[in-house]
């Protein structure tokens, strides 16, 4: 039932016993495997960022010529043009000023936006909508696996390292639930044996004892996983995670998201076989004090765009192989509410970044925001099923050959956010 790695079993004793200075066997193996299977291509990496709380898509990317929206949001609407703060993208849509870092990427056609994206299930509960989006089955709660875990299973090659699917979170996100091995870790620095006082001699001693014990374990699952744990640990120790300096003077914000993306950049550069990465960004549930150029929304937006921008600069050499995609459970009401915020709505927008993305475009459809065009007379209609975009990005970027079981109940046409392979 479990789709575990098999390389250790096959490669046997030769892999065991690498010293602190050696290259972990799975890294060598990873390199070999990609050579064999992909003709010298480096692995493709998909980074997903879940914006928890439901981002107001109409504030992030505003259809600023829409008068209905303007009148519905007297305290929230930001004007474009004539020195106004909203960043005009194409004469119709404007980027929130706090997302300024995205402007350049959009102009360079590396950043694509999909507007009107959401779930076919009209639940406006954070829990349900996140659950459906992460399982990828919007009408079934009991789906065991998350969609990203299924992505891992569909890539058509064996996992060769414990770092194939990594989530920088304290516990495994719903998207990662499933039979394919996935790692949740809040801080790479903790991927080591932690002893009082950091005594190197004592730590090594204890480490050796434990390594011996695991090598002797009766259960093959524990034995193999134990070996990998020690190899991975030694490798990360060697990499000196704590003293990392980003390249290109990239400056990550000192926020949870900034720290998460920095660690993902480190993993990418370590060439440890990372293929699917996941990070979270909270604080989008703006019922109160949403603000305009400043306020709760602007703070989160600044964090999001600056973190992604820093990450993108930092991994410049790897940009051709990396795609970043954001997602959020739903959008927010067209009208502002009584407390300077917006309530739970339906469609929102998302961002897709990559050198190979059909960028510089706002994909999808938004009809003029008149009452008749709104869902239940209040919310931006979902015109693009989130699975349309997730499926296209994952399938094309990660070169999945058979994606039939990725979103089992979904059939549809791609929007064209990525070029055809």
């Amino acid at each position, binding site marked *: *039932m*479990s789709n*575990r790695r098999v390389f250790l079993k096959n490669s046997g004793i030769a892999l065991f016993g690498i010293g602190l200075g050696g290259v972990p066997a799975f890294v060598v193996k990873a390199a070999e495997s990609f050579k064999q299977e992909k003709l010298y291509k480096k692995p493709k990496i998909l980074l997903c960022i879940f914006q928890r709380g439901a981002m107001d898509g109409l504030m992030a990317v505003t259809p600023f010529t829409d008068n209905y929206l303007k009148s519905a949001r007297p*305290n929230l609407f930001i004007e474009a043009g004539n020195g106004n703060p909203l960043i005009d993208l194409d004469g119709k849509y404007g980027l929130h000023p706090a997302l300024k870092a995205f402007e350049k990427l959009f102009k360079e056609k590396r950043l694509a936006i999909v507007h009107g994206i959401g779930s076919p299930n009209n639940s406006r509960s*954070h*829990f*349900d909508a996140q*659950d459906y989006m992460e*399982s990828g089955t919007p009408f*079934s*709660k*009991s789906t065991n696996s998350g969609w990203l875990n299924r992505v891992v299973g569909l890539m058509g090659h064996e996992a060769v390292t*414990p770092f194939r699917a990594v989530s920088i979170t*304290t*516990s*495994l996100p*719903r998207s990662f*639930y499933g*039979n394919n*091995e*996935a*790692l*949740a*870790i*809040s801080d790479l620095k*903790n*991927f*080591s*044996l*932690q*002893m*009082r*006082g950091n*005594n190197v*001699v*004592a730590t090594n*001693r*204890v480490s*050796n*004892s*434990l390594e*011996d*014990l*695991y090598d*002797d374990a009766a*259960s093959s*699952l*524990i034995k193999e*996983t*134990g070996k990998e*744990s020690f190899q*991975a640990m030694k490798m990360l120790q060697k990499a000196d995670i704590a003293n990392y300096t980003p390249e290109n003077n990239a400056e990550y914000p000192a926020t949870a998201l900034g720290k998460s993306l920095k660690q993902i950049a480190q993993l990418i550069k370590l060439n440890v076989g990372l293929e699917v990465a996941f990070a979270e960004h909270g604080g989008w549930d703006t*019922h*109160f*004090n949403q*603000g305009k150029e*400043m306020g709760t929304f602007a703070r989160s937006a600044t964090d999001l765009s600056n973190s992604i921008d820093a990450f993108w600069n930092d991994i410049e050499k790897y940009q051709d192989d990396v795609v970043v995609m954001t997602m959020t459970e739903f959008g927010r009401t067209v009208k502002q509410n*009584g*407390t*300077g915020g917006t309530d739970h709505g339906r469609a929102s927008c998302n961002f897709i970044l990559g050198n190979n993305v059909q960028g510089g475009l706002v994909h999808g459809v938004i009809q003029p925001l008149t009452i008749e065009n709104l869902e239940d007379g209040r919310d931006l209609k979902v015109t693009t099923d989130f699975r349309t975009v997730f499926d296209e990005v994952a399938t094309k970027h990660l070169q999945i050959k058979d994606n039939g079981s990725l979103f089992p109940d979904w059939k549809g046409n791609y929007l064209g956010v990525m070029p055809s392979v």
Partner: protein
Amino acid sequence: MKKFSFYFLLLICVAILASFSSSRNDYIKRIKFPYQKQGLTERQAAAHLLSRFTYGATQSMIDDVVKQGLENWFLQQLNANLPDETLNEKLKSYDILTMSNETILNKFPKKNDVIKMAVTEGVIDKEDLIEIKANKKDSSYKKLLENYMKQKVFLPEQELMRQQINQKILRASYSNNQLLEVMADFWYNHFNISATKNQCLQFIPVYERENIRKNSLNNFEDLLLSTAKSPAMLLYLDNFSSSGTNELFVNFNKRNSNKKQNNNGLNENYARELMELHTLGVDGGYTQSDVTEVARILTGWTIYPLNDYAPGANFKKMLEKFKDKFSEKGFVREGDFLFAANRHDSKEKIVLGRKFKEGGGYEEGVELLKMLATHTSTAKFISKKLAIKFVSDNPPQSLIDKMTQTFLTTKGNIKQVLITMATSSEFWSKDALREKIKSPFELAISAVRILHADIKRPMALNNWITTMGQKIYFYQAPTGFPDNAAYWVNTGALLNRMNFGLAIAANKIAGVKVNLTELNQNKEPESAEKALEIYAKILLPERNITSTIKRVQPLLQEQNLIEKINKSTAKNEENNNLSVDESTDKYNHNSENNFSSFGSNPVFMQVVGVILGSPEFQRR
């Protein structure tokens, strides 16, 4: 002596039979565990029994169980009525344990509700919320909110979560009725509720206490009905909002319709999970049409309005004022459960071939749940899940069949199914011994128990359990945590397990106190080698420790070598409170904890830590 023990045994049996006779269903014959045939000694069998039905065996528990008789111990655990003074003392300060749903909702309101209330009462100016300028305003607004909470005697939700998590850890660690705690955990996971959803957190304490724990060793049917009517489940799987049309109430509904709470229509979530996860199992032989029909039967099953401030408050007043009238019309209130007849689809339904006549009300839901609870597919599904929990990840079909048979003949008597399992040869088979990998929660609690650790504040322990991969009460999907080794064992988790072992042995977990000296009856081992042997025996009772000792031995030898080198060169590392010198210097000032005895000896700590982090200790 022999005679005495015979009478003693008889006395116990009489006592047990007497205590069982109070409930009609619990006719329990004398039982016999067939461990001898499987080649186990009595002590090995006791260790196995304890490792499966408690949160961790200790040497002294094995002594007690052997003295009492394995079967007697088991029957006593099934009865789950041992006094629990130690635990009760530890739980004294947890006031949520006696609170009702209503009290909890009113005492621990959601933050957003507090803000709404504060605005309604004019404590916070609406304009302030809108015209937020800089962070300055934020802090004054925070203060206003804080004062408002104090004035209203509200407590933050984090406090509710803290108490709920702590009490679970304390119960598992210290309760004498261990099997009850293990089963409560099993059923909670089976009928999982996640605190990640809306107000579910506020309903979890009562749910676990009244709906789960109280029914954990009774009939499956009672358990199912109890969860079905609980506000936690009604909310978590959305049935509270599911409604159909009822012609008798057309005018009533028109009069009382509320713009905000418009008729949501049918919601199939609970109906689907009820069959897929709670009863029949995914291959239990139902169709999508059955799901819809079950959902229709359960329309109107909702939560009695409990909040003083929520939109339901007016409805509550009405329900109370015209209580008799509502009851005449088919409304049913049972505690926090409400059957709202006006939302019930009263037309005919067919589930699994069985017809439910037009005009039915609350009673057809009860009938349906009873039918599902005693269905053959349910018997198979539940038996297999129990066998996976208590025997192995891949339990033999022969065992599942026996348990299924008992489930069917006793109409889902949980005690009887457990007895069938524990008296089977499969349970005692060598293939089953130590085959289960402890979940992070089980690992942490078993370490606490075997070290006789004193938990003053359980939160830090909970953080470790989360780090090792199990965030209790927060598993998002209604499936509950998977119960198999592959789920728990991955590189990151394994490393965290080793670190946990090292941390708890070194007294590095805040609020959890370990005294290795006391653990060895205040005796100091003569040498490091002796210490290894002693602690391995204590920590791995009735297990083969020769391999562990062999593998940990180099730790000590290397230690001796380093010691010699250090002495000869007199080169001491500074800032190094784990340096070998510490072990010889009883007055060392670097030590972080207050033990001045040998219990703080870092080598012993390392030895204990390594054993707790070893593969052997991960198994139960």
